[in-house]
């Protein structure tokens, strides 16, 4: 009897597996499914991952869609800006099937490719409309406040979203961004010419700046040096003056006997002036040679 129990359990498991395969289906994390009964879609999208019950074919049928975000990039295409500049742009779009029930009757077999062709058409008109409203300075600008590239992306996104909503395509756009931004080929050449002349200006500017700057620095340095020296001279004069002032205090000493003071000074001056390498011419009136005057007459010349 125990053996039979095992047999029954095994059989039950197998039957269950078979029943699971026949009467249920799974929706994976990345999917959304629509269940049709005799071809008529159910009211709800099955967009939560789980195990769902269904009657076997041909009563009910499951249509699965990838609900993950798809990447779509449109062709690099030309549009005129408001100030008549031809601009080349390409955008990338992250889009996904948000409502499979609406989505799959509109595109043959729920084809992603067909949907993307539709998206491309919408993008083309949205881009033309949005770019035509903006000047080139909205696309490139050193002032972050005037740069409107992000706003332009949002405008294109909103335009496409509005179209999708009115048409009820069951598609939603998660994000949209500029992938490429360029100029027509012939324009690039003129841009190069302009860039070249701008560079030439920069070259000569750098040359002049260097010389001017160097001269400025040097002359400033020289002026400062002159100032420093002039200050030093003034300081020197002041110091010497203070010396004289200090010495003047001692003058009181000499005032006790100005005659002696002057005599001493003269004597000192005499000593200093009649130093080496000088020639002294004197006659007998100069002391101490005055002694010669009183010598006997035989020394007298004729």
């Amino acid at each position, binding site marked *: 009897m125990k053996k039979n129990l095992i047999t029954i359990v095994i059989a039950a498991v197998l039957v269950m597996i078979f029943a699971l395969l026949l009467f249920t289906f799974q929706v994976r994390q990345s999917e959304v499914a629509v269940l049709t009964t005799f071809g008529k879609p159910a009211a709800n999208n099955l967009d939560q991952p789980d195990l769902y019950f269904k009657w076997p074919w041909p009563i009910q049928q499951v249509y699965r869609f990838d609900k993950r*975000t798809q990447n779509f990039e449109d062709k690099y295409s030309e549009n005129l800006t408001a100030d008549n500049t031809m601009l080349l742009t390409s955008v990338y779009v992250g889009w996904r099937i948000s409502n499979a029930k609406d989505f799959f009757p509109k595109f043959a077999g729920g084809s992603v490719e067909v949907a993307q062709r539709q998206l491309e058409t919408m993008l083309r008109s949205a881009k033309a409309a949005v770019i035509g409203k903006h000047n080139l300075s909205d696309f490139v600008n050193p002032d972050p406040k005037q740069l409107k590239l992000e706003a332009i992306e949002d405008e294109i996104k909103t335009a496409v979203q509005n179209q999708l909503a009115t048409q009820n395509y069951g598609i939603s756009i998660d994000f949209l961004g500029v992938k490429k931004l360029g100029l027509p080929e012939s324009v690039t050449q003129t841009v190069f010419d302009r860039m070249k002349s701008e560079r030439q200006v920069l070259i000569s500017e750098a040359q002049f700046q260097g010389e001017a*700057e160097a001269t400025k620095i040097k002359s400033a340095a020289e002026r400062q040096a002159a100032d420093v020296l002039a200050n030093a001279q003034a300081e020197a004069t002041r110091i010497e003056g203070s010396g004289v002032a200090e010495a003047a205090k001692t003058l009181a000493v000499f005032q006790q006997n100005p005659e002696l003071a002057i005599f001493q000074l003269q004597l000192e001056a005499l000593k200093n002036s009649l130093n080496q390498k000088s020639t002294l011419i004197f006659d007998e009136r100069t002391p101490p040679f005055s002694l010669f005057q009183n010598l006997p007459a035989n020394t007298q010349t004729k």
Partner: protein
Amino acid sequence: MSDAGSQALAEALRSSFVIVKLALAALLVVIFAAGFFTVGPQEKAVILRFGKPQGEAQKMLLGAGLHWSLPYPIDEVIRIPITEIQKVSSTVGWYLTSPEMELAGTEPPAGPSLNPQIDGYVVTADRNIIHTRATVSYHIDDPRTAIFNFANGTNQQFNLAGVSNAVQNAVNEALILSAARFNVDDIITRDIAGFQDAVSQRVSELAEREQLGVAIDQVQVQSVAPRQLKDVFAMVTTARQNRDKLVNDALSEQNRIASQAGALAASITNAAESARTRYVTAIESDAMAFTELLPKYESNPNLFAQLELAKAMTQILTNVQDKIFLPQRADGKPRELRLQLNREPPQPKSAANP
């Protein structure tokens, strides 16, 4: 039915039951064994139970090794090629080149213009055209989002191609948007780091806003001037370097002049200082001498003067080089004295010229 017949039938049934039981048991074993799967080093696996990924955040990803899952209708194992660090490079902004050329360090010849279909570039804020490219390293922060929210075009396959594509486009957008607000000189020379930061910041911002489930680790940006204008851009760099050199030379000259002037000023004031000291001490010593001599002088001024003069004359006569004594003429008339100021060196006497 005879007993023998029914017994044979029972025997046959029993034996066939045994076979069926064995087969069923074998089937169970097979089903159980089929639940084992291995994960390689360059991939991760996720178990979907009734379509729902098992485990939260990083625990969702099963690493290398042996794992077990329930059989198919319940569990499904999906494998994702994944490495620790993901890398992706921008696809816009650079001129057409090949990996071979990159390795060799060469570049394709530059035409007079850029073909928008082939050559990538970005337009800067000051409407210059330059080439720039970026490489982004990132890691998967939220596997559920990164794996299950982004498709790569092929239906029902799971890998990171979808999210990698989204990151790549985020980098492309970041390059174009950042270039649109930076001037050419900032991107190429003056503020390379600033531009890189702007791109990096924008990529992270987009990754967050577009909910890519990735975290940006690093963004490296490389920017160059168009090949067509390489020379003239290099000339600007050279001119700027020359300018800097001129300025630096001038600055060192400035230092030299300043320190020279400082030294000279110091020597002037020092000289004045010592002159003052000398002067003051000289006067003071004179004063001292004066004070000492005063009593002597006052006792007999004339004698004192005569003595002092005589003393001085002794010293003077010792020091003086030439002494010429010129006595008075007998008749008392003044003598005429000729002074030859330009003293000639004494000439040797010869026989011809006595």
